């Protein structure tokens, strides 16, 4: 029993326990708390699996955005649902959901077991092509160069998700302000924290994007941190999130994917859609990442904030 084995065993045990407790708990708030803890443990697990890029994303999503989203969603359900019958799902729906989840988990387990344990996967191919990628981090090279169309489509999917959330608004509130008006005592602890943290958050976000070219990091991680910080500033009552109809907001949402698409189109003129010339690759990738960071930050923050619920601030 090496310490590494003890650590990994304990970590796996705790992650499974947190997951079971999140699903099986009777108290909904407890389930949310377990789910947040589960996210933290999974981030540590990704570190143990040497997938630091994924760990960064999981830490930002799990510790930051998911917590805010689930806790405020639960509070809203408790306020709007008539007392005593919140979370009534119906037995059949629960069984169907359980079967579906078990099926997905089974398929994933099968896929994992079917992998060749001695296989190197795509690693040799990627290390061979890495000198032409313009960046030293193989994950960034795959995401923004070798398989850039995946990332491009994902950034567009995020936009579609936001449009879907917005379309849940009442007709009267269309184009209005997302969520309800947040407020806090202006000289209180919360407002002070909301003023203190953003400078650190901005530096960390920019650092993550910049580091992403050579080390773990990148647009998604940086953008998620920015989104969380923006939501904190709104929760501390310092600023309001902009109107959904605001032109600067919509420009920020579209800029990243649009710029990415333009880069792809220029590549198409030169021969390959999304093809990057090795000499210019690093500059182009950093520019695309900067644009994506902005758009991902705006999209995620507004996704968490929810559909427009009022027209007056």
């Amino acid at each position, binding site marked *: 029993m090496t310490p590494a084995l003890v650590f990994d065993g304990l970590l796996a045990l705790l992650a499974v326990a947190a997951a079971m407790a999140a699903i099986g708990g*009777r*108290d909904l*708030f407890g389930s949310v708390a377990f789910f947040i803890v589960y996210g933290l443990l999974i981030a540590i697990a990704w570190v143990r699996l040497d997938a630091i890029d994924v760990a960064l994303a999981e830490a930002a999503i799990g510790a930051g955005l998911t917590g805010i989203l689930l806790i405020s969603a639960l509070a809203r359900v*408790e306020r709007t649902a008539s007392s005593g019958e919140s979370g009534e799902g119906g037995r059949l729906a629960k069984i169907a959901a359980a079967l579906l989840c078990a099926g997905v988990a089974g398929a994933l387990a099968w896929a994992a077991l079917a992998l060749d344990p001695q296989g190197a996967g795509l690693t040799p191919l990627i290390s061979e092509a890495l000198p032409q990628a313009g960046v030293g981090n193989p994950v960034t090279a795959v995401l923004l160069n070798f398989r850039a169309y995946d990332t491009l489509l994902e950034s567009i999917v995020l936009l579609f998700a936001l449009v879907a959330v917005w379309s849940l608004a009442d007709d009267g509130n269309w184009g209005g302000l997302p969520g309800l008006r947040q407020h806090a005592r202006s000289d209180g*602890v*919360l407002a*002070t*924290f909301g003023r*203190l*943290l953003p400078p*650190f958050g901005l530096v960390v976000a920019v650092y993550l994007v910049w580091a992403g070219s050579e080390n773990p990091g990148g647009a998604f991680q940086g953008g998620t941190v920015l989104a969380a910080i923006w939501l904190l500033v709104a929760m501390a009552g310092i600023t309001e999130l902009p109107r959904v109809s605001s032109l600067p907001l919509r420009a920020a949402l579209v800029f990243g994917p649009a710029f990415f698409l333009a880069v792809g189109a220029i590549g198409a003129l030169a021969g390959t859609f999304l093809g990057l010339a090795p000499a210019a690759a690093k500059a182009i990738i950093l520019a695309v990442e900067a644009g994506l960071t902005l758009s991902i930050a705006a999209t995620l923050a507004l996704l968490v904030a929810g559909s427009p619920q009022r027209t007056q601030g």
Partner: protein
Amino acid sequence: MTPIDLYTLAMIAAGAFFFFAGTLGLLRFPDLHSRLHALTKADNLGLGLIVLGLLPRMGDVATMLKMLLVWVLVVGAAATVAQLIARIALPGHLRSRPKDDGR
């Protein structure tokens, strides 16, 4: 074992002890405000000791400064959270929610 190893060992052992104490308090103390007291002081001291113990092993100055920043951020977060939770848990502040018996 070099002197630096011994230093690291002493510091992280002390840090782990404070984490242990904080967790014990969180589990054993009778009411919310006492548990808050145990939690927000002991484990932040523990984290600080661990950071100090690990500093000389991290090689470059940038990583050392990042580790110190990690500690500063956690302490700031804990101070904020302690204030807010202490207040919301005062009688009359916590909205009634369905309670279980705490087992």
